[in-house]
């Protein structure tokens, strides 16, 4: 691929931003444009999530971007967060546009909270009728029914999950942008946090609910090389949506003690980038809930099925391990900006500017389950 990430921008991450979602989007997008050393008029494309409430035109109008010639939105929520890079890269590589801004901004804590139970009288999509009436009224419950089988099949305990959380919070504790900056936890703290879905998920296994906005500028490598920031090459980016799978209710694969979509994303990324798991220096792994880190470590081939708990217990995902994971604190520790903040951390790692920098990081994996990207340093 010949696309590159030339700029990143973000607002502060909070529990109550005190301003509109549109303003968060505008602030983040403008910060990314400035970071890239560009002017608003240099941007001619925008990509965001299907669910984002801020219109491309409203953002462009407010910032002074005179004309957009490419817009696209990615489905599947956070699982599609890395797909935004695939879509933006395709746009600039096609030559149809020069510079695309990816954005995601919301008041997900002070506004509509994803984690709250659905109301009985809320009208659900008919596609959720086989699931939600049976009591699956929160993401934690929906996902726990999948995780339960994984944990049973491989003997993973909630304490095993806690060992990931301790590391994520340790990373957040030294990242000044993280909501949980300066607040590391112990395994005892994790085990003392209240059950959300007993005996699968405790409160500290759940991602935060956050207010904030983030953005990235994607352009061609040729152009990025002339801009002020160290260019970050998009070495590969792809998605996987399998016919026996589902975004929320991923219960219908023959074996659900694994994450087949993530496995396919990994296989495609390795093939496309011409590298393998051993070449990855740092991994930013989407975790709405802790078990998806375990499932993805296994799906991407960093360890074998059922062995993520040992990989983590052995210290492999800490800053001194063989694969530092979620060096910004992840969605548990930094903030839940729907996974797009993981892309920004990948960029910082390749630039060499992360708060918790992996020395000489040349390849960063951004894994979002059903989408993924490999970001690479230019030699």
């Amino acid at each position, binding site marked *: 691929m010949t696309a590159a990430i030339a700029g990143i921008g973000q607002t502060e991450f909070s529990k109550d931003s005190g301003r509109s979602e549109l303003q968060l989007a505008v602030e983040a997008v403008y910060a990314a444009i400035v970071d890239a050393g560009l002017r608003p008029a240099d941007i001619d494309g925008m990509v965001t999530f299907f669910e984002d409430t801020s219109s491309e035109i409203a953002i462009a109008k407010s910032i002074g971007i005179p004309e957009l010639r490419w817009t696209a939105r990615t489905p599947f929520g956070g699982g599609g967060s890395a797909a935004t890079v695939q879509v933006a890269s395709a746009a600039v590589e096609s030559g149809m546009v020069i510079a695309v801004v990816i954005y995601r901004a919301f008041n997900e804590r002070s506004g509509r909270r994803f984690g709250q139970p659905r109301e009985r009288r809320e009208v659900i999509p008919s596609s959720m009728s086989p699931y939600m009436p049976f009591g699956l009224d929160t993401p934690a419950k929906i996902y726990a029914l999948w995780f339960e089988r994984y944990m049973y099949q491989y003997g993973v305990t909630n304490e095993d999950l806690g060992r990931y959380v301790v590391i994520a919070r340790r990373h957040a504790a030294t990242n000044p942008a993280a909501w949980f900056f300066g607040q590391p936890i112990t395994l005892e703290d994790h085990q003392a946090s209240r059950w959300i*879905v007993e005996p699968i998920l405790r409160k500290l296994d759940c991602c935060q609910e956050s207010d904030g906005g983030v953005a990235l500028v994607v352009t061609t490598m040729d152009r990025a090389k002339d801009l002020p920031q160290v260019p970050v090459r998009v070495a590969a980016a792809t998605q996987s949506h399998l016919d026996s799978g589902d975004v929320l209710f991923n219960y219908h694969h023959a074996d659900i003690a694994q994450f087949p979509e993530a496995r396919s994303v990994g296989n495609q990324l390795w093939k496309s980038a011409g590298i393998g798991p051993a070449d990855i220096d740092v991994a930013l792994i989407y975790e709405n809930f802790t078990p998806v880190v375990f499932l993805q470590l296994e799906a991407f081939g960093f360890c074998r099925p059922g062995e993520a708990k040992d990989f983590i217990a052995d210290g492999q995902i800490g800053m001194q391990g063989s694969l530092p994971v979620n060096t910004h604190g992840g969605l548990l520790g930094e903030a839940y900006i729907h996974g797009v903040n993981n892309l920004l951390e990948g960029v910082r790692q390749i630039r060499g500017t992360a708060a918790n920098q992996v020395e000489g990081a040349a390849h960063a994996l951004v894994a979002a389950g059903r989408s993924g990207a490999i970001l690479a340093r230019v030699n």
Partner: protein
Amino acid sequence: MVIQPSIDRSNDWFWEGVNEHHLLIQRCSSCGNLRYPAAPMCGACQSLEWDTQEATGRGRIHSWIVSHHPTGQGDSRIVVLVDLEEGVRIVSNVVDAEYDEMDHELPLELTFRTYDDVTLPQFLLVR
């Protein structure tokens, strides 16, 4: 407190069946492939023609959770993934049982319960 299913042309037959205490599985008329959840076309042979097969109601627990929410909001039920003997996996609830009686592969049998105005297919432990 049950979230009501949204019923439209894609699934009205299923919920009508449930209201009459039948658990119906969509079956391709051309190749006999069963599909759940419902879909317009058979992914195996691309036929748009389908009928239904009534489930025997026998199945086994594949996984389970208790849907108790810590704030007491929402539902608190035993939610299960059930492997029906027809080879289809569905979400349902186990009723008249305690959480500590649950185990993987336990045999289940179908029943129906009505909560307020919503009838759902539910399961009992085979004792």
